[in-house]
């Protein structure tokens, strides 16, 4: 059930009506839980059962962790939870990837091996809820939070349908207190939710999907296209993936607001980042912060010298890349991001030691240049992420740098420029400072009318065959 479809609209309208008609908070939790289970089971009921079982297991382990005093027992329980969650993730998502890679490695070494291919379906959103469950048990282990006593509350934390399949990755300390709190009808929250939903729908239907139509044929066969078309496709994909994922997050945030819940913001105008470190603080914030808190810092973070910091950066980014999908393109993308972060770190040290250079870079033209450079670097490296194979990625990256003749894109260029202008405008208006000022100064009728026009535009500009969200595959 996709967010931007009629079945979801009917589903959500029904749940919304039942939810607010019920006067009891516990009953509302049960309704949301049942709705979340149904939302997942519509896609695959057996996998929905697996998610529920693994969630119940995490609940029990966390209760035992909370109650237990023996360090060995607690360590064992934590290891059990992490192993079980990662085991499920590896089995469903990475087993075939590892087997295939092993087979290719063996055959490259001159050994012939025929390893089995497992027939498994990748459960929707497994990467997201696995990380939520792990962060929960780790937090309980370190006694940052108490284990949740109510099973329905805990299950709702993992299964809450707005964030279930593509995040944002929520933290127990943010979400569980909200589940316990009685919800009251709030017009401001409702208006905010509707605003998030309209903006999200616009991003998905009017920006991401048309840009997907432009990028898809180019990425399918990059050798058939000229350099200009390749750059255009690279930029188009950058717009697509941002608007697709942030659009999904916006709709998730909006739906949650309509039900009285607040999820963390997942994007903060990433294409206005002036360097790559800042970019990753603005992009998929819930994943970046998870990686930072549960991987980068435990590995030593940036406190143990330059070499280990760089190693940690590359390692965590490589794992973040692998988190996105079971393919070498994702791993290489992650490694490249890690290396670019290291380069930025070195350059920042270099610039800090030269105040004149630092001043130039911090000036308005210097900042604009840094924003443009960060954007182009990200788009260029994103080619690896989107390509269907490393061979295609190298071919495309090479042809982007060395002028090559070939076909142009099939989608009218005007569409691309309009979409790019809309995203740029969205970035400028979407900054919290500007947004706050707009909210205060622009009269409510103008704001409402603008959103109405945006919704109309979203429906008009959506391609005839709208696609699933890109991040569903992760």
């Amino acid at each position, binding site marked *: 059930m996709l967010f931007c479809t009629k079945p979801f609209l009917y589903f959500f309208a029904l749940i919304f009506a039942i939810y607010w008609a019920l006067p009891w908070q516990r009953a509302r939790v049960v309704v949301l839980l049942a709705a979340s289970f149904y939302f997942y089971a519509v896609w695959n009921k057996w996998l929905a059962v697996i998610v529920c079982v693994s969630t119940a297991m995490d609940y029990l382990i966390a209760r035992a962790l909370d109650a237990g005093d023996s360090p060995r027992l607690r360590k064992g329980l934590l290891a059990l939870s992490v192993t079980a969650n990662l085991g499920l993730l590896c089995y469903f998502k990475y087993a075939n990837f590892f087997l295939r890679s092993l087979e290719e490695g063996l055959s490259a070494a001159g050994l012939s091996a025929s390893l089995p291919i497992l027939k498994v379906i990748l459960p929707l959103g497994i990467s997201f809820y696995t990380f939520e469950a792990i962060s929960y048990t780790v937090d309980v282990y370190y006694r940052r939070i108490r284990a949740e006593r109510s099973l329905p509350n805990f299950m709702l934390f993992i299964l809450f349908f707005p964030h279930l399949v593509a995040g944002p990755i929520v933290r127990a300390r943010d979400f569980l207190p909200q589940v316990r709190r009685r919800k009251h009808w*709030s*017009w*401001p*929250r*409702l*208006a*905010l939710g*509707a*605003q998030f939903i*309209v903006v999200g729908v616009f991003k998905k239907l009017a920006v991401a999907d048309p840009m997907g139509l432009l990028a898809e044929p180019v990425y399918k066969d990059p050798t058939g296209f000229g350099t200009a078309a390749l750059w255009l496709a690279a930029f188009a994909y950058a717009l697509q993936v941002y608007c697709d994922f942030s659009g999904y997050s916006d709709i998730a945030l909006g739906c949650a607001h309509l039900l009285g819940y607040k999820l963390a913001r997942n994007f903060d105008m990433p294409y206005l980042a002036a360097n790559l470190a800042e970019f990753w603080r603005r992009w998929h914030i819930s994943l970046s912060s998870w990686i930072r808190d549960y991987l980068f810092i435990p590995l030593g973070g940036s406190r143990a010298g330059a070499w280990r910091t760089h190693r940690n950066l590359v390692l965590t980014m490589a794992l973040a890349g692998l988190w996105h999908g079971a393919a070498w393109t994702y791993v290489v993308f992650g490694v490249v991001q890690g290396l670019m972060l290291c380069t930025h770190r070195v350059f920042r040290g270099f610039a800090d030691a030269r105040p004149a250079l630092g001043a130039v870079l911090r000036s308005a033209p210097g900042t604009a240049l840094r924003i443009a450079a960060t954007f182009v670097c990200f788009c260029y490296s994103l080619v690896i992420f989107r390509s269907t194979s490393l061979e295609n990625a190298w071919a495309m990256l090479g042809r982007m740098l060395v002028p090559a003749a070939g076909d142009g894109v099939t989608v*009218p260029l*005007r*569409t691309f420029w*309009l979409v790019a202008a809309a995203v740029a405008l969205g970035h400028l208006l979407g900054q919290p400072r500007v947004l706050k000022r707009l909210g205060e100064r622009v009269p*409510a*009728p*103008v*704001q*409402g*009318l*603008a*959103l*109405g*026009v945006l*919704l*109309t535009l979203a*429906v*008009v*500009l*959506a391609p*005839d065959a709208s696609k699933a969200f890109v991040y569903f595959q992760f």
Partner: protein
Amino acid sequence: MPARHLARTARRRLLWLLAGFALCQAVLAVAIDVWLDQVRDPEYTAKLARLKARLAEAPGRPLVLVLGTSRTAYALDGASLSVPAAGQHPVVFNFGIMGCGPLLQLATLHRLLDAGIRPDLLYAEVMPALLVASEGRALEEKMLDAARLRAGEVIALLPYYREPHRPVFGWGLGRLLPCYRHPAELRALAGLGNPAWGGAADYPGPLDGHGWHPRPDDISPEERQRATAMALGQYDAFCASPQVAAEPVRALEALLERCRREGIPVELVLMPEGKAFRALYTPEITTALKGLFARLQERWGVTIVNARDWVDDAGFWDTHHMLVSGARQFTEHFGREPLARALRALSRRTRDAEKS
């Protein structure tokens, strides 16, 4: 800011969001119904634009207009007939429209006359399957998307519907959410997509300057078999129906009546069909249709061009829509016989008029 004020502002914002969306729909609905023909009915607009261009190129030449369904749209190469013949140098234009039975043909003729386009000779396709009723309704009543019509056209066509609430409902639904009903056309209007009609899209294929959709002959036997099975399945119930429906016949007669009033000579055409399609008709409906055509000839003095067996089976891709080879066969026959005869009659009438 006090909570009550915040709530009031939020409520107003929400209401204005809904109002904004509703206003957009209302503005679009009015614009589409009154001005934006290319959004409401891009197929008609694409053909009209080409027709106007042909007439502008050849002022004073007689216009031979062929109205009809997709069968006509794929069948008649008007350009090859727009040459001097029988003392005339006509502009032959194929105004075949997908699913265009008697109701839409009537609306189309009214539109053309309102636009100042008066054909000197009119051919109107009669597709038998569109004249019979199945499950209580004529096929066109089910097929015709009322959202492509103006409000006034829907009202004018209501007497020709057995269930008049259906077109009203269809039209209303289209105008209620025009952004949802016409997104591709609106994108094309804004230059953000391919032309909504007559472009290189798969369906219905490119449209030539004389209104013809040439469908290339490169069809595999499997594809032909699949398309034929689909066509036969689609029309089976209608060709086996025992009775002629009164409503489409009334619409056809209204067209004949308008032509008589305007002094436009008109002929009816039974388009070619493959053997498999012809075999669908039961003896009962064949007899009923024969009776109907005899009545029409008697009452309106209209000529009926029976072209049902003019094209070999190889000329169709689905036993009733023609490939380019079939279209050439049909066009040549059409030009040689009925058109030449009608043009001669037209020449005679012109001469008589000049003399008098």
